[in-house]
């Protein structure tokens, strides 16, 4: 599935980066984290954030990596791309619940909370979600191709899909 013809920009956990075709952008091993891809369909430019937590109000430090949180990450990515939000489209993936266990409730619910937070932020900027693969209980590795605007998703249990 994943072509090695083009350069692939890798985004780490809690990080954000941008890319222009023909390069692609990817992030690996998404669990409860949510990846948001914002792209400009005709200018073939995209950015990816690997969000760990729903809201920057959870941060106990003054300075932090904006990509870690849904609210600060999406805002920062829009600024980095430099296009009006109305031109952007979004694809999202991740937010799984890896462990089924009730006693660490807060920790376990983090996937669904991340998904909700991402939807709220995207709605705030009125960026439509054109594709999503969220929830479930599988880890995901994803790769976005800005020239076709396709998102390739790989899981161990379910296999590969394209949205």
């Amino acid at each position, binding site marked *: 599935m994943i072509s090695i013809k083009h350069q692939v920009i890798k985004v780490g*956990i809690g990080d954000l980066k941008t890319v222009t075709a023909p390069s692609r952008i990817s992030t690996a*091993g998404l669990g409860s984290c949510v990846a948001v891809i914002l792209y400009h369909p005709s200018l073939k430019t995209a950015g990816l954030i690997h969000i760990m937590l729903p809201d920057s109000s959870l941060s106990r430090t003054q300075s932090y990596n904006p990509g870690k949180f849904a609210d600060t990450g999406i805002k920062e990515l829009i600024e980095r791309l430099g296009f009006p939000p109305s031109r952007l489209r979004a694809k999202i993936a991740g937010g799984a619940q*890896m462990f089924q266990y009730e*006693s660490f409730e807060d920790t376990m619910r983090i996937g669904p909370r991340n998904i909700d937070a991402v939807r709220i932020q995207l709605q705030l900027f009125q960026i439509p979600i054109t594709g999503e693969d969220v929830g479930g209980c599988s880890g995901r590795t994803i790769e976005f191709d800005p020239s076709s605007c396709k998102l390739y998703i790989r899981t*161990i249990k379910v296999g590969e899909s394209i949205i």
Partner: protein
Amino acid sequence: MIYKNNITPALFDQLTEAGNIGAGNAATSLSAILGKKIEMKVPSVKMVSFDEMIDLAGGPEKEVAGIFLRIDGEIKGSMFFILSLPQAEACVRLMTDNPSFSIYTTPLSKIGFSALQEIGNILSGSYLSAFSDFTGISLFPTVPSLCIDMAGAIISQGLFEVSQAGDQAIVIDTVLSSIGKKEILSIEAQFFVLPDPDSYDRLFESLREIQ
């Protein structure tokens, strides 16, 4: 981050020693369960970024069996016990005396699931009781939970607490392995202990007292 300045190399050494004693006890338990000699490498205590933490477990996409539990008591934290799939399979085969057990069947058989969960239970219990005796901090494990998937997806779930307090975590990393000749069923397992940042003060205070 406050803890960066307060932690002296001597305290890191103390923490390594606590990890050493915990893992030593866990190695003894593992050896009793599997009926094999188990040795451990000296643990390393590191301050790592989240990406580095996942790399310690083999990289974000590596398929592993991960047993995760929370540490509760006077200090809180997360604990992981990570096995590669062939090694998880070998463990279950030894425990259940079933040489045809396969870890690659989906869904995983109930017996395989509970055997691995039980290993997590016993090892974390013995690790933490020794850790607790050494540091004088009372702590206990919650019921472990098993997941077979990508290492990145498994470990990031345990970063929930630390990620709120900064971009780095203190991790006690230990490797246990079976010794002897090149055996078919060689075991190598990895332990991660990640104290919650809120517990750093209490943890290092106790370590200072025993210095």
